[in-house]
C-alpha cells in the first residue's frame, strides 16, 4: 500500500504540471482558435526566470515565481501582438507554424545563455529534499506543494471562467467571436488576457518543472511536449479536459513505469500516453471532454 501512496502522490504531482501546461494550450485555443506551440518555450523561460529571480537575485521562491509570471505573460502577450494577431484571417496553420518557430527561437535563446544552460538548476524552492508523511509514507514535500498550488490555480481558473465577467466574455468569444463582438464583448481585450493567462500558467508550470526532485535544464522543454497527449485526450477546447487529461497522463506514465513488463520495452511509460491518445482519437476525435463543432450543411 505504501508503494501505491508514493506512486499516487508522484502521479498527481507530475499530472498537475501537465494539467497546467495543457490549460495554457486550451485557453489560447478556446479564445483565439490558435495552436500556440510557443507555449513550450515560454514555459522553459518561466522556469529559468524563476531561478534567476529566486536564486541569483535572491528574491525568494514566491517572488521568483511572480517575476517569472510577469515576464512570461509579457512574452506571451508580445507573441500574440506580433505574430498571432497579424496572422488573424490567414490559414490557421500559419499561426501554429509561426509559433513553432518562436518556440525554437525561445529555447535556443535560453540554451545560449551560459549561466542558465551549463548547469542543472533547482529554482530555489524552500523545501529542498524534505519529505512529509502521507498516511505514514514519506513523500517529497515539493510534490504536495505542486499538487495543492495546482489545485488552487485550477479551481480559480474554473471559477474565473464560469463566474466572472471576463469568463462570460471568454466563453462568448470561444463560442462565436463575431457574434460576441456584435454584442459588445471586448474581443481584443479577451484575447490579450487569454494569451497573458497562458503565459502565467506556463511560468507556474516552468517553476514547478525546476522544483526538486526535478532539476531544470534546456531539455526540460520536453515536459511541455509530454503534455500534448493530455490536451488531445481531454479535448482541445475543454478546460476540464485539460485538467483530467493532465492527471491521466501523469498517472499512466507513473504506473506504466512501475508495472509494465520488460517485454514492452524500456520506454513503455513514455509511449503509453500516446497509445491512449490514439485510442481516444479513434473513439472520440474531439477528446473526452471536447465538443465537436456542429455545422449546418
Amino acid at each position, binding site marked *: 500500500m505504501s508503494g501505491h501512496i*508514493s506512486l499516487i502522490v*508522484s502521479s498527481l504531482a507530475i499530472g498537475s504540471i501537465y494539467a497546467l501546461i495543457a490549460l495554457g494550450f486550451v485557453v489560447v*485555443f478556446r479564445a483565439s*482558435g490558435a*495552436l500556440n506551440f510557443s507555449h513550450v518555450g515560454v514555459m522553459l523561460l518561466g522556469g529559468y526566470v524563476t531561478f534567476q529571480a529566486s536564486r541569483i537575485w535572491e528574491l525568494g521562491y514566491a517572488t521568483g515565481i511572480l517575476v517569472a509570471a510577469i515576464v512570461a505573460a509579457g512574452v506571451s502577450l508580445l507573441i500574440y501582438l506580433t505574430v*498571432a494577431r497579424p*496572422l*488573424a*484571417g*490567414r*490559414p*490557421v*496553420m500559419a*499561426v501554429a507554424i509561426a509559433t513553432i518557430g518562436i518556440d525554437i527561437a525561445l529555447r*535556443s535563446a535560453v*540554451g545560449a545563455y*551560459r549561466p542558465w*544552460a*551549463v*548547469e*542543472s538548476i*533547482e529554482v530555489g524552492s524552500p523545501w*529542498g*529534499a524534505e519529505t512529509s508523511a502521507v498516511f505514514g509514507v*514519506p*513523500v*517529497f514535500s515539493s510534490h504536495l506543494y505542486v499538487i495543492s498550488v495546482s489545485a488552487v490555480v485550477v479551481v480559480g481558473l474554473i471559477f474565473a471562467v464560469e463566474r466572472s465577467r471576463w469568463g462570460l466574455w471568454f466563453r462568448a468569444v470561444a463560442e462565436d*467571436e*463575431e457574434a460576441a463582438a456584435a454584442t459588445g464583448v471586448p474581443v481584443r481585450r479577451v484575447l490579450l488576457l487569454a494569451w497573458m493567462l497562458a503565459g502565467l500558467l506556463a511560468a507556474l508550470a516552468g517553476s514547478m518543472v525546476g522544483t526538486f*526532485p526535478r*532539476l531544470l*535544464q*534546456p*531539455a*526540460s522543454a*520536453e515536459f511541455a*511536449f509530454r503534455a*500534448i497527449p493530455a490536451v*488531445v485526450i481531454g*479535448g*482541445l*477546447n475543454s478546460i476540464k479536459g485539460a485538467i483530467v487529461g493532465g492527471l491521466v497522463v501523469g498517472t499512466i506514465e*507513473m504506473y506504466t*513505469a*512501475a508495472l509494465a513488463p*520488460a517485454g514492452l*520495452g*524500456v*520506454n513503455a511509460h*513514455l*509511449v503509453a500516453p*500516446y497509445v491512449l491518445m*490514439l485510442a481516444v*482519437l479513434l473513439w472520440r476525435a*474531439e*477528446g473526452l471532454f*471536447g*465538443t465537436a*463543432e456542429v*455545422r449546418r450543411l
Partner: protein
Amino acid sequence: MQRRMRPRTITRVTAVFAAMALVLAACGGDDPEEEPAPESAEEDEAPDDDAEEDDAAEEAPEDEADGSDEPAEDIRAECDVTQGVTDDTISITMLNDLSGPTAALGAPDIGEAFRAHFDAINADGGIDGRMVEVEVLDHAYSPVDAAQRYEEVRTETAMIASVFGSPPLQAIAQDLVDDCLVSFQSGSSGQLAQDYDTIFAPTTTYGHEILNIIGWVIEERGETDATFALAYQSDALGEAVRQAAAFGAEHYGFEYVAEASHGPQDSDLTAQLQTLLAEDPDYIVYGGLPNQLAFLSAGAMAAESDVQFISATPGFVPAVLGSPAADAVQANVFISGPYSEWEGDEPGRVQMREEIETHAPDVAPGQGPIIGYSSALVVAEALRIASANDDLSLHGILEASQQVSGFDANGLLPELTYGQYPDAPRVPSHASRIWQPEAGPAAGMVPLTDYFESEASQLFTEPVL
C-alpha cells in the same frame, strides 16, 4: 477576425505533432531483452592474458567498419589527402553539446578546457610553428545535428578531434572511417572506438568503469554476498552500462534482484525507485546522468533506505552538490572514473589549472574539464607525431595517432598506448579510480582508490554495437 479551424481538425493536427513527439520519446527505447547477450559475457570462463585482444579481433565488424581490416600500408585515396593544414595552421574540429540535454551537465566545459590547451600551445608557438585552430560546433546531442555539422567540415578539417556523446558520434562513425578522419571520443561509451578504426578513446570506457566499481565492492570491500539492482537510461550510455553490468554479474556469480530503466529526460523516477527498493538491494548499479542519479539518491534517503549507488563518470557533476540532493549524494553515491584530482602539486595538474584558468577562466573545476583537457593533450601528441613525421595528411594523422605510446597526459590519465588494428586496441586503458562526492574539493569528489582494473574489467570486451 481570425479564421477558426474545426476542433476535430485541430485535434488531429495536434495529434500529428504529438506523434512526432512520440517518435522522439521512443528514440533509444530498444528493448534490451530482444538484443543478443553480449558475446563477451559468455567468455569469462577461461581467461588468459590475450583474451581481450583476441576478443577485439574476433568482434571487429569487418563489414561495417570497412577499413579496419586494411593494412596501414594500403593507403586509400580518401586518406591520401591533406586538408585543414596550411604552412601556418592546423584546423581541427570538436563536435560538442552546447545547447542540448547534456549542455546542462557540463559538456561545454569539456570543450572549453579542450580549447584552452590548444590556446596555450598556440601561445607557445604552436605545433612546429603551426597554430592549431579549434572549431567547436554544436550538435546539441542530436545525431541529426551531428551529421549536419560533420558535413560542414568534412572536407576542410584535419581532424574531428573530439566528439562528445555516443549518439552523435555513432551518427558519423562510418563517415569518419570512410573519410579517414581521426577522432578521439570524449564523454562516450567507448564501444565505437573499438568498432571503427579511426576512432580512439582517450579515457577508460563507461563499461569498464562500471566493472571496476562492481569489482571494487566485491574484491576490495569484500562484500561477496552483496545484493545488486540495476538501473539505466534508455540510450547508448545506459546500454553500455547494462551490457557491462550483465557481464559483471555473470563473472562474479550474482543476479540483479531488480532492474529498472528510464528515458534520458525522465525527471520523476518514483516508480523506478520503488521497483528497485522493493527488493532491498545493497547496491544499485546506475548507468545514466546526474539529475536522475540525484533523484534516486535523494529518494532512497527519503525512503530511509541504506542502499548505495555505484555509477560511472556521467553519473555525477559537481553542480549536483548545489542541489537539494547534495546530502544524499554525498552519503550514498560512489563514482568510478579515470581522471586525476583537480588539486595537487603534480606538474600535470599545475599546468592544467594554469592553462584553463588563463585561457578558459569561466570554466568551473570538475571532471569534465579534466577529461576535456586530457583529451586535448592526447590529440596534441598525435599532431606532434604527425608533424614530426612530416606527414599531416589524413593518413599521416591516423598513423601518428596509432603511434601514441606510453602517454600518460602528464599524469592526468592512466598510461595510453594506441596501436594499429588489430594488434593493439584503440581503447588502451581499462583502469579507473573510485570517487566519493564531497563538497570540499574543487571537482566535488575525493578519490577512494588509485587506478586499478577489476578482474571483470580485465576480461571484458565491449560488444559490437
